[in-house]
């Protein structure tokens, strides 16, 4: 089994989820990806564990006994803890996303979710790096976020605003899987599931501009999960 490590250390996660079945399922998925998972089944207990130890990320259910997940995150932030948090919410709560992100969570995921979606989101928050940099580089692709200019191999790539946002999100998460839902939320700010293939068609256009005519492909399709921008 491949270990998720920074340096020599295995990445440790805390899962706070009261439903035993979901907890077991999520734990198995995360351990399968090489994370070390500790579990709590209660809000107050989970908060105590999170404050007593240095986890690499928390996965927190919104509805918990003794203290709900949102309050837990708010308290954690109020106590100056910056550990990344993925909030799990119930189905399609219209305000869950806004509340969750305003409450200090780094991302949120509505139940029920696909395993691939969970893994992609956890990976994204655990390794959130260079999030604020204005200039990003992957292989021979360069992105100037301030002036909204993209160049590949020194050649200007002409992009529409939405295409630029899409590429920027992929570049920021280079080397990690981003799912269709993540793109819909973060690039188009859609809070519903469209019935048309918005993501697929935009990716296809972007490939036409970023990859076509170059020796190597940067945008890869990860079957059953999503996309990944990676310089081989």
């Amino acid at each position, binding site marked *: 089994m491949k270990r998720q490590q920074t340096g020599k250390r295995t990445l440790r996660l805390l899962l706070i989820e009261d439903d035993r079945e979901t907890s077991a399922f999520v734990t198995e998925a995360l351990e399968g990806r090489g994370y070390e998972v500790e579990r709590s089944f209660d809000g107050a207990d989970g908060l105590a564990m999170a404050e007593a130890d240095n986890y690499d990320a928390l996965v927190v259910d919104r509805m918990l006994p003794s203290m709900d997940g949102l309050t837990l995150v708010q308290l954690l932030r109020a106590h100056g803890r910056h550990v990344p948090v993925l909030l799990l919410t119930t189905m399609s709560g*219209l305000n869950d996303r806004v509340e969750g992100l305003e409450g200090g969570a780094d991302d949120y995921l509505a139940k029920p979710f696909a395993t691939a979606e969970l893994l992609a989101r956890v990976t994204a928050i655990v390794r959130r790096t260079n999030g604020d940099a204005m200039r990003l580089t992957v292989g021979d692709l360069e992105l100037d976020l301030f002036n909204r200019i993209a160049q590949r191999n020194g050649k200007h790539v002409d992009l529409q605003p*939405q295409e630029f946002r899409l590429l920027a999100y992929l570049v920021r998460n280079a080397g990690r899987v981003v799912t269709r839902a993540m793109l819909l939320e973060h690039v188009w700010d859609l809070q*519903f599931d469209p*019935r*048309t*293939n918005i993501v697929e068609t935009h990716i296809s256009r972007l490939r036409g501009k970023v990859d076509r005519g170059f020796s190597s492909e940067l945008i890869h399709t990860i079957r059953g999960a999503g996309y990944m921008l990676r310089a081989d």
Partner: protein
Amino acid sequence: MRIRYFHTEGFRLSAIYALVFALSAFSIGAVVLLINRHALRDQIIQSSSTDLEAMQRAYDQEGIREVREVIGQLKGAPGASELFLLQKDGQRIAGNLPAVSPQLGVVELRPSAQRARVLGVGRNLAPGLYVFSGSELTHVRRVQEQIQQTLLWAFLAALLLSAVGGVLVSRSFLSRTDAMARACRAIMDGNLKARLPVRGTRDELDRLAATVNEMLDRIAVLMENLGQVTNDIAHDLRTPVTHLRQRLEYGRRDSADPIKSEAAFDAAIEKTDEILAMFAALLRIVQIEGGGRRAAFTPLGITALLEQLRDMFVPVAEAANHSIFLETGEDATVNGDRALLVQLFSNLIENAILHTPDGTAIWLRLVHPAPGKVAVIVADDGPGVPREEQSKIFRRLYRREASRTTPGYGLGLSVVAAIADLHGAKVEIEPASRGLSVRVTFETAAS
């Protein structure tokens, strides 16, 4: 049961009225008695003075004999009730009263312990010659007693009437509130069609009953919707759940063949997602209809919104061999929830892409139909929707036979309707020579 009358508003009001009436009747009665007593006494004094004047004249002209004569006449007059006394040096010489110590002016006498008091006037006709004329006060007392009695009876009758009135009013009040309570209980027992009785008098109770009835009508509509949705869900879920089950059975049957079983399980997962998405859409409609999002409305420019939508859907449309055109004129601002309005127009645009053949063109138009209004029209030149089906397509879970094979769960337009409703916007299908044209009309934000 009887005691309940005392607790009704009608009875309370009647009791207050009765009390106020009793107090005013008492004071009026007292005043009447006082005035009457004065009037009667004045009358006695007046007639006594007149008598004395006559006696004085008789004495001055003819002397004491003539005075005795006058007294005799007055005493003997038919129906006379006056009493007289003529005394000289303390000795009675005429009249029907015993001798007294002479008092002048208005005098009240008590001739003996057995007799009634006498009111009258005394005067000296000459030194030592005293005359008195008066009347017994029994008459005054009798009249006063009669008045008192009349007042008492009237008072008792009024009290009785107000009590009876109070009971009648409260009984009518009670019978109406009882009828309302019965109607409410019937509704609680499951007769949802029952309504509170309305008399048509437009009084407070009627207005209250009418308002409650309106509320019940509204609840009934909501319940009906809910029932309809529950039915629809139960019905529409059967198909995907049956498919899901089939896929799982295939997966088990083909467990020896990994490729086949994997495909079956993938299909099962896809079906599950479809079911979950259907639930999510339904829950979202309920949430939108709840109206809580209205608090977060902000002013939004329509043109920018439509441009964003066009940019989002152009690649999708082109991949499906459709084209999208944006026609905007003067921009307009509406108050709304950006995410929900994006969803509203996305649903309309997706319908235009998904339910029309290759080569169809789609227009997004911004028009200003009237001052203070702005409309967004999503139109296509596809096959359109037959007139008889147009009213149905906004119904929850309604799917046209023709669209059964395309993705979706028949909730797209219900979501559109719910979001438009939340924004106070009107959704209409426009008469069009070709294709389907949906018009959403908003009130513009005051800017």
